[in-house]
């Protein structure tokens, strides 16, 4: 029975093996109606397989997938109320744009004029008005991408699955299309699940990001949460540059913990899981959280190099024990406190800007 209270899509301990390789390994995930979710991970991490399990192109080895409380296992792909936009677009080359859009509308019991009206609306939605008569091979890459999107939206799916939807576009077009995709999802209110290997794209698009590694969903949360409070070294490094200082976990109090390092004691946000005192940990600090301090406090360091990157300035600093730290400051900000390369200074960062990760 449909359960209106629960999540729109629920994945319970889904597992899929290909031979000896566990492509999806016990993934559980809840998706709310109208949510924009992003599965992020390198190629081969199982994110596309998870999408294909939801669409029904692969069958589960273990676990369940429920849509509005209803188990999808018994439904073949053509009966599932989800639609997929394929990475290769998979447009039918023998049909016109309108024919491609109409393909999913036939069999819904619509009249010919209703179908024509829906096609017009879809073409307007993706700004392809007037191109209904064209063949896919006469369109540009960006236009084909929009046809594929419109075709996947034609049946008004409750969940739209998008496999690397922007992967084949060039960089400038991709950024523009991210905004459009985001706006479209807001307007339609459907749940979108996007698979991508690009962290910047995931952060630009999604309400919530699920990071996958080797078939497992390792962390799930908003872009800000994943960026500021990664649960592992992998997630921390995936979403952006990070400085890692090895050390030993000390006492935990009020969500903060002390870490004993070769550079002295530091404080940082305690890990979510209890690692126990004395555990080997990493102190993770984002480059933009490190600032110069007045002499006498913080960590003494020598500036090695300053690199101007346009909107940001990156600096490389050597600590007394030889480790290098990277910092990043907005280019327009005053350069007060930063010496010339070769000069020495003191560095500091707020304790809650540092996250303690299992080593």
């Amino acid at each position, binding site marked *: 029975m449909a359960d209106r209270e629960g999540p729109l899509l629920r994945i319970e301990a889904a597992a899929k093996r290909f031979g000896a390789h566990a492509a999806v390994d016990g993934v559980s995930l809840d998706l709310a109606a109208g949510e924009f979710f992003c599965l992020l991970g390198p190629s081969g991490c199982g994110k596309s397989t998870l999408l294909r399990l939801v669409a*029904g192109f692969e069958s589960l080895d273990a676990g369940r997938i429920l849509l509005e409380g209803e188990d999808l296992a018994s439904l073949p*792909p053509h009966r599932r109320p989800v*639609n997929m936009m394929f990475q290769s677009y998979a447009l039918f080359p023998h049909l016109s744009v309108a024919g491609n859009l109409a393909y999913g509308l036939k069999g819904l019991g619509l009249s010919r004029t209703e179908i024509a009206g829906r096609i017009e609306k879809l073409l307007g939605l993706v700004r392809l008005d007037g191109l209904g008569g064209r063949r896919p091979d006469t369109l540009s890459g960006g236009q084909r991408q929009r046809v594929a999107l419109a075709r996947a939206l034609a049946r008004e799916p409750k969940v739209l699955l998008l496999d690397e939807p922007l992967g084949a576009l060039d960089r400038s077009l991709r950024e523009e299309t991210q905004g459009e995709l985001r706006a479209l999802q807001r307007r339609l209110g459907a749940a979108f699940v996007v698979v991508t290997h690009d962290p910047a794209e995931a952060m630009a698009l999604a309400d919530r990001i699920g990071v996958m590694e080797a078939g497992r969903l390792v962390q799930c949360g908003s872009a800000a949460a994943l960026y500021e409070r990664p649960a592992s070294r992998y997630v921390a490094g995936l979403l952006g540059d990070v400085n890692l200082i090895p050390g030993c976990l000390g006492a935990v109090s009020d969500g903060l913990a002390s870490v004993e390092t070769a550079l002295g004691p530091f404080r940082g946000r305690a890990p979510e899981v209890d690692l126990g005192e004395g555990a080997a940990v990493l102190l993770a600090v984002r480059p933009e959280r490190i600032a110069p301090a007045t002499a006498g406090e913080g960590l003494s360091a020598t500036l090695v190099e300053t690199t101007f990157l346009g909107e940001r300035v990156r600096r490389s600093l050597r600590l007394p024990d030889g480790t290098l730290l990277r910092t990043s400051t907005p280019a327009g900000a005053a350069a007060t406190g930063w010496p010339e390369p070769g000069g020495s200074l003191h560095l500091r960062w707020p304790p809650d800007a540092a996250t303690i990760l299992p080593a």
Partner: protein
Amino acid sequence: MTRSRLLDALVRLPPWLWLSAFFLVPFAITLKISLSEAATAMPPYLPVLDWKGGLEGWSTFLEALHFQNYETLAGDALYRDAALSSLAFAGTATAILAGVGTALAYAMARAPSRWQPLLVALVVVPFWTSFLIRVYAWIAILKPEGLLNAALLRLGLIPAPLEILNTQGAVLIGLVYAYLPFMVLPLYAVMSRLDPTLREAAADLGAGPTRVFWTVTLPLSAAGLRAGALLCFIPMCGEFIIPDLLGGSDTLMLGRVLWSEFFSNRDWPLASAVAVVLLVLVVGPIVLFRGDARKAGAEAAR
């Protein structure tokens, strides 16, 4: 002319030489014989060009040519019936082949990929046996006391042996059997290269397996179907061995008419005329059709 263009021309030369030597020249000879007159001589037709006669030899030679044989073909209902019956046999067999070949090629293309080379080999293997022997084998299968009737009688499905051999049905069975690989292989070549995500996309858009086949797989395999149909239809129109061995004496096909004019009547000119008519009948529409298709393709590209 630059070096590369010279090389280019050299590369193009062999196919032209080949076509000229083995198609154009024989066709010209056949055409010439079809305009000649049968004679009890060696060669069995007149006129023969007198090479030593110079310009005069040529003019007497050309004056002696005539269209008498074509008039005979047009006037005699036998030849017209043979032509129509050939087209009907070839057309029916091509239609059956299209159905059977599509099913077979589709099953092959969807089989596990490690099986596919074996399946292709199985389709091709019969070619290693003589064509004549394979057609004779069908006599053994189809004759009243043959394998098929014995099996059907044993199973109690029929009360008396069926009369299959020496009927039109036997000719169709023979044609479909013999030409099946020519239909299956081009279809398989196209179908095995179809992007499987297109089928997935169709299923994703609500199409069941049957609709996916009719609306995606088949339209995208049309090129293979067309190639297979041409490869089967053209030679089947002139087929001689199958109607002769399986069809009995009253099966009328141009190939048989041609054969009996050549070898029984020793009327080479009339036989040549039949050959020319066959060629025009079969190749003519195809050349026209292809020109049409190319125009349509060019238009679609625009």
